[in-house]
């Protein structure tokens, strides 16, 4: 696609339910990132996929969070047993490679509200 696409754009879920957030990166981009941004805060790195390498999961806040990337393209971030503190915007980004000089391109985010 022309840009990074995320879905859903908004999600309201009950505490304790599982949610899945989807990211379609720009076609051909091998690097994919997930970030979380709480209201008025900076971006918190969650997970990073680069090609066929093992993902960097160092930013995942707990074992309730997981992500996968199928076929080197679409990625799904799953949050199990959601808690109210999980409420945030989840931003996905992609870049052509993981090369340090690459710009990364962001989607518009998925707004998650846990009630």
């Amino acid at each position, binding site marked *: 696609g022309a840009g*990074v696409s995320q879905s859903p754009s908004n999600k309201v879920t009950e505490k304790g339910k599982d949610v899945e957030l989807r990211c379609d990166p720009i076609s051909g981009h091998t690097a994919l*990132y997930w*970030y979380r941004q709480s209201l008025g*805060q*900076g*971006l918190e*790195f969650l997970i*990073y996929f*680069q090609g066929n*390498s093992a993902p*960097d999961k*160092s*930013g995942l806040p707990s074992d309730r969070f997981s992500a996968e990337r199928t076929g080197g393209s679409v990625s799904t971030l799953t949050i199990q047993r959601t808690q109210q503190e999980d409420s945030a*915007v989840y*931003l996905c*980004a992609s870049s052509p490679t*993981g*090369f*340090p*000089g690459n*710009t*990364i*391109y*962001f*989607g*518009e*985010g998925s*707004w998650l509200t846990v009630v």
Partner: protein
Amino acid sequence: SQQGEEDPQALSIQEGENATMNCSYKTSINNLQWYRQNSGRGLVHLILIRSNEREKHSGRLRVTLDTSKKSSSLLITASRAADTASYFCATRLGAGNTPLVFGKGTRLSVIA
């Protein structure tokens, strides 16, 4: 984990004035990037400065980098109301293929 820290956290100026935002980081870097975020939306890349560069310009933007002080600044000249946004610096956590991490951002308000 956070690598960059922007300063100030918030800045309010009149249209036409210059806005300066600073970023400090902790580890050695290959390059440093600045991004802009309009309220509640995805970030947009503004400019990248490499570790061997001291200053870079792009339109009304001027970025400086001082690797000895591990700091960078973003200057927006002749600000406009449309420049109202949050601005973030971003660096890699380490050398090579490492993720890009962002500071907490500076919220800029330009008053017409």
